[in-house]
């Protein structure tokens, strides 16, 4: 897919990512936010115990190599003092925000969080990260379809 067609597809798709509370006006006036809504928007996304949900089929999953690599990366970052696990959980399970929390795969969040800590603690500039991603992409001649 060309960059332009990917961009156009992206613009249509992000429009579908709405706050789960369907409201007619985004960025509402302050007086439209009562205490319950304030609490809802500030909720820690990971705190799901007791929320209603439907029965699902309980499944196992075969692990991807990249998932195992991600897990080892995150633990090595903890081992070598870049972060502690609680910092990781805070970033990975709450800071990412409600949409990414429920929308991304489990290890997708671990991975994004590992990338983010490198930039946040200035071990890597965002420029370096972006360039490295490009370099890796070129190395693997990635199709943009996935």
């Amino acid at each position: 897919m060309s960059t332009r067609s990917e961009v156009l597809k992206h613009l249509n798709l992000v429009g579908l990512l709405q706050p789960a509370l369907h409201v007619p006006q985004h960025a509402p006036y302050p007086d439209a936010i009562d205490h319950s809504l304030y609490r809802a928007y500030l909720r820690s996304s990971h705190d799901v115990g007791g929320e209603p949900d439907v029965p699902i089929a309980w499944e196992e999953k075969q692990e991807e190599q990249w998932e195992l690599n991600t897990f080892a990366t995150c633990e090595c970052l903890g081992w070598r003092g870049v972060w502690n696990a609680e910092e990781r959980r805070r970033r990975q399970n709450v800071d990412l925000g409600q949409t990414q929390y429920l929308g991304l795969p489990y290890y997708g969040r671990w991975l994004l969080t590992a990338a983010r800590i490198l930039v946040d603690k200035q071990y890597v500039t965002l420029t370096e990260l972006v360039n490295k991603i490009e370099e890796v992409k070129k190395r693997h001649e990635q199709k943009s379809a996935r």
Partner: protein
Amino acid sequence: MSDKHKEDEHGHRPPAPMVDEVSDFEVLEMAVRELAIEKGLFSAEDHRRWTEYVHSLGPLPAARLVAKAWLDPAYKKLAVADGVKASLEVGVDWINSPPTGFGTPSDYCNLRVLEDTPKVKHVVVCTLCSCYPRPILGNSPEWYRTPNYRRRLVRWPRQVLAEFGLQLPPDVEIRVADSNQKTRYIVLPTRPAGTEGWTEDQLAEIVTRDCLIGVAVPKPGIKANAKRTVHPAVHPVHHDH
């Protein structure tokens, strides 16, 4: 010709994927790992060692802990009072076994063994994420990590356990342990009838991972978790040995 390459109604075929196609996640994973190593945050050797450590983990030590506890009341008392000390006897040193020398970053060093009785059945969840006693049990199953399990087990435990095939009389206390902080739990189920005179090995064989989480109970002849759909990986973990 596979379905993937069938012509649609306009006579077009979808583009054939490259043999070695990588996903956005795989690209980012490589980028992060390479940068971390380039910047000296950890070494390639560190990463390899951690991968090896993960490969060494599984549910067998926890199963043996339970079998030992069934055979030795004094060991059972120790297991309930001090899970970390009891783990040493099944070859798991929560502090020194991991490469760090101070425990794993994510699993800490505070195992609590939850003893089932005829009147109390334990079952474990981490409603906030998916905390799990990896050093003695291996990695968590996919269903344990789902928001669905984490939402429902703590409020509708009997419904969820019924979905796992476990139903208990109303007077039995179902105690849900929500591992939300540094403690990690395994369940010590009650020893089933029909195992009189069994060896430790025979007993350990029927203590499955699902029994140790608490969604199943050990039964003579049942040596594996219940059969479930396994979602396949696109590029599964390859084992070098």
